[in-house]
């Protein structure tokens, strides 16, 4: 209840009421806070240069110098993991922001203006949704060629559709409501109706969708990097590190376990937060 009040007052300042949250959500917040802190300050504190190879020390066991040991090139796994979080999380954040910047405006216009623009956009959306998003992302990334930029483009291209559709759906139901009609009678131009009256109604559902999508986006990015379509060696990236460790899985399984665990923890914490958020905001919709 508290959060719905806070949202009603100011939809942009999402006040998180820690006391009334479920313990699992709190764990998610705790975990993600640590991971983000690690992403920001970690690279300044790591013991070794993540790129410097030392063939004499390759596949070493954990030690004081190399907390998680070294990989097949003798590079510090711990340092690579910490630095790699920048690539993985940074790209994820950029992808989500870009997706929102594309998906929300198209959804608003499509829903409110309708007509040919709407039909055109929805046919594109239907086409994109008809294909499994992961396979489509592989196809686009493969077509554009392997690089981080192309990886981002491919993920954005498959992800914007779901935001456009949810926004459009909400706008279609809200635009007939009397407060929108009253705003129209009161002389609001179209942009003002969209920005002032419709946009605030879509913020919270879109927020929940985005929170739940973070985990999926991280998985897609890591998967594409694993397939060699994303970050290029020697840059550290979790999915690419998994791929590096693949050849040594029989003898040194830790090479895959560490980046795998990192991905697992980030996705887990994002999903816990996303689900907590969804449960909270459902209260409001009643």
């Amino acid at each position: 209840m508290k959060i719905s009040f806070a949202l009603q007052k100011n939809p942009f300042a999402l006040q998180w009421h820690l006391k009334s949250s479920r313990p699992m959500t709190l764990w998610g917040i705790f975990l993600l806070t640590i991971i983000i802190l690690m992403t920001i300050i970690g690279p300044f504190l790591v013991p070794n240069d993540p790129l410097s190879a030392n063939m004499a020390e390759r596949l070493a066991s954990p030690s004081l110098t190399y907390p998680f040991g070294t990989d097949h090139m003798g590079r510090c796994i711990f340092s690579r993991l910490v630095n790699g979080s920048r690539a993985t999380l940074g790209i994820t954040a950029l992808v989500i922001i870009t997706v929102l910047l594309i998906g929300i405006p198209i959804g608003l216009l499509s829903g409110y203006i309708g007509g040919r623009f709407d039909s055109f956009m929805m046919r594109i959306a239907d086409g994109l949704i008809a294909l499994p998003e992961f396979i489509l992302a592989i196809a686009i990334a493969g077509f554009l060629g392997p690089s981080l930029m192309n990886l981002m483009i491919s993920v954005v291209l498959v992800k914007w559709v779901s935001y456009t559709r949810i926004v459009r759906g909400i706008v279609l139901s809200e635009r007939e409501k009397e407060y929108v009609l009253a705003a129209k009678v009161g002389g609001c131009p179209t942009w003002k109706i969209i920005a002032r009256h419709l946009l605030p109604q879509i913020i919270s559902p879109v927020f929940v969708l985005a929170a739940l999508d973070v985990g999926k986006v991280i998985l897609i990015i890591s998967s594409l990097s694993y397939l060699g379509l994303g970050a290029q060696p020697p840059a550290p990236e979790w999915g690419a590190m998994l791929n590096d460790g693949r050849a040594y899985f029989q003898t040194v399984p830790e090479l895959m376990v560490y980046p795998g665990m990192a991905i697992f923890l980030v996705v887990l914490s994002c999903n816990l937060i996303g689900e907590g958020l969804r449960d909270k905001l459902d209260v409001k919709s009643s």
Partner: protein
Amino acid sequence: MLEVKNVSKSYRSNTVLTDVSFHLEQGECLGLIGESGSGKSTIAKLILALDRSDSGQIIVNNVDFSQLKGRELRKARRHVQVVFQDPSASLNPKLPVWKSVIEPLENYPEASPSFLKEVRNEKRKMAEILFEKAGLQSGLLDRYPHQLSGGQRQRVAIARGISLQPNLLIFDEPTSNLDVSIQAQILNLLKDLKSEINMSYLFISHDIATVQYISERIAVLKEGRLVDLFKTKDLFSADRHPYTKELIDAALE
């Protein structure tokens, strides 16, 4: 000042209005009654230019509303305002109510209602005066719609309706969602405002007693046709349309 001429409207194969004509004098209140589905709200929507009629004309201040588009329509709109039935739906839940009230004034900076002349360009002051006119305490200015009672919300909607001092204010069943005691207060408020600000009312309702109380003339709508139009004092006269008599009998039971 309002002239509805031979207006017809259908949605797909469903005819809602057939050849409806009536007019409204400056300062007059015309009541429009009929059962649900008779097309009352459609008439309101057509006059507000929220929808287009299939044929016929809607003339406000000698301008044919049904022909206007885009910028001209937006300009003309300020002369016709509305108060909807359900005040919990007609106010944006995410805006403090005073912002909803002065929004029309922001959209039409050239409009200068006589009762707001002295505080022009002071939004907060304008909202205070409008609140006072609608019988609301200024302490409620910063509330959100869900923090107000139904009667208060409807007063907020009325404050917004009069904010531009429109020539015509349309009420689409403004009291049917309210308690009986509050209905009377709202009706008295509307009566006072009309004489004070010099507006015409089109008052749509299914309740014949409400309409009788506030209107000078009454139009009766049945299945999209205007079947009866008379002065309120002739409500009980013998030459009423049989359907009007039915409505009266139903109300008296």
